């Protein structure tokens, strides 16, 4: 047991540049994927919620646009969530991005963002449904438009209530970005594969890999816990103060 750990430490020391490099790529993929995914999720989740509301002053054209938005976003969410990211990565990388001369990391960031966006859209949408109807009625009654109501009143509250699920997505992304190694992105899992291949110390390498992932996910959970506490502490002021300040 002690010897096994000793061999793991040796590996870590000998290949620390490779591991660190891998961690860097993994962190970039997870952070970019979660941040961009959240942005996509906010827009798509908000749009989906609005496209389901019928307004009396909707013109025929608006109705058609709403229907199209509803269908298109539904297809996006269903396809992305219903297929493995690894297969999406393989297909898009070898089918398009590689040939088009894309950088692997950029393509990976795009794929993980689009993927996370689909999950985030559903997280945000259920967050929106959890907000009391009175909030939007109050907003509409003073004359705010549907989109203003969504952006200024409903989404900020839905976002705040969704923080635990959003943190969960970050943790999922730290782990699941490993499937993007199929696109030749030298992230942590890719590096471990290389190291295991050259040293043939397979068990040691992958145990070490597990430990590294566990450290990263724990760190993420801990940091986000602090952020969440800050937001809840500042209560209503956090998301709101800038919205009035920025004007239209």
């Amino acid at each position: 047991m002690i010897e096994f750990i000793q061999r793991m430490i040796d590996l870590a020391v000998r290949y620390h540049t490779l591991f660190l490099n891998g961690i860097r790529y993994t962190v970039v993929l997870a952070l970019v994927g979660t941040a961009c995914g959240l942005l996509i999720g906010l827009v798509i989740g908000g749009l989906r919620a609005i496209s389901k509301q019928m307004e009396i002053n909707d013109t025929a054209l608006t109705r058609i646009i709403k229907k199209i938005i509803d269908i298109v976003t539904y297809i996006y969410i269903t396809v992305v969530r219903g297929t493995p990211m690894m297969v999406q990565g393989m297909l898009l990388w070898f089918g398009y991005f590689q040939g088009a001369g894309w950088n692997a990391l950029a393509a990976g960031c795009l794929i993980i963002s689009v993927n996370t966006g689909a999950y985030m859209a559903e997280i945000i949408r259920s967050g929106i449904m959890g907000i009391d109807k009175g909030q939007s009625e109050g907003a509409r009654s003073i004359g705010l438009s549907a989109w203003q109501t969504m952006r200024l009143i409903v989404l900020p509250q839905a976002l705040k209530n969704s923080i635990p699920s959003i943190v969960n997505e970050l943790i999922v992304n730290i782990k699941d970005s490993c499937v993007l190694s199929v696109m030749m992105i030298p992230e942590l899992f890719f590096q471990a594969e290389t190291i295991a291949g050259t040293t043939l110390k397979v068990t040691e390498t992958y145990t070490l890999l597990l430990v590294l992932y566990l450290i990263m996910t724990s760190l993420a959970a801990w940091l986000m816990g602090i952020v969440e506490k800050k937001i809840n502490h500042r209560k209503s002021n956090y998301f709101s103060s800038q919205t009035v300040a920025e004007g239209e």
Partner: protein
Amino acid sequence: MEHVIEIKHLAKSFGTQKVLNDINFVVDKGEVVTIIGQSGSGKSTMLRCINLLEVPDAGEIYVNGKSIYEGNINKHRSEVGMVFQSFNLFDNKTVLENCVLGQVKVLKRNKHEAIEIAHKYLKKVGMDEFADKPSTQLSGGQKQRVAIARSLCMDCQVILFDEPTSALDPITVDEVLNVMKKLAEEGLTMVVVTHEMAFAKDVSDRVVFMENGVIVEEGRPEQLFVNPQTDSLRRFLGRYLNQQTA
């Protein structure tokens, strides 16, 4: 005399249930009209139709002589204030922001002017010292006073109150009613759905009694309360008095 609100042949159903049936009714400038009636008689639905939070099935509604279907719906809504039983303040905003947001986004006022106006109306409802508090940290009565200020900030022509004190404990009811009385004295046009018969009697110019989606009786409060013309109103008032004394 200019009608602030004019409703003609308003009808509304939810599914097969007819909730409003041929409602005709006007509110003049400066009038305070209270609407009373059993739970489920359609009072809220009627108010919500005026603000288009509910879409009428038939009939016409005019605010200041203009059909509510004409022009911009958001502008129309900004001209008709609405105070809800459940307050509906923006939970992610401070008291001041609640009052400023609509002015900036809907009326396109500049922010400094909007803040000044917000303070003015918060003072009027006695809530200015709470301006920087998150709205979630207020008591019910305080929330409702802020909600009234939020409507006033929009320079609305009329404010519709839907049971503004029903969610409050008896002690705080008066703090809201007093603000409403003050506004009534200052000549604000108000339509108030309420179970506060004392308010209906003392403050309103006219009382409207609804039952099963129709207006059964309306008139000056002294006439309606002292000398009800219909059995249903007599029954309603009788039951009400029993409740009060029980």
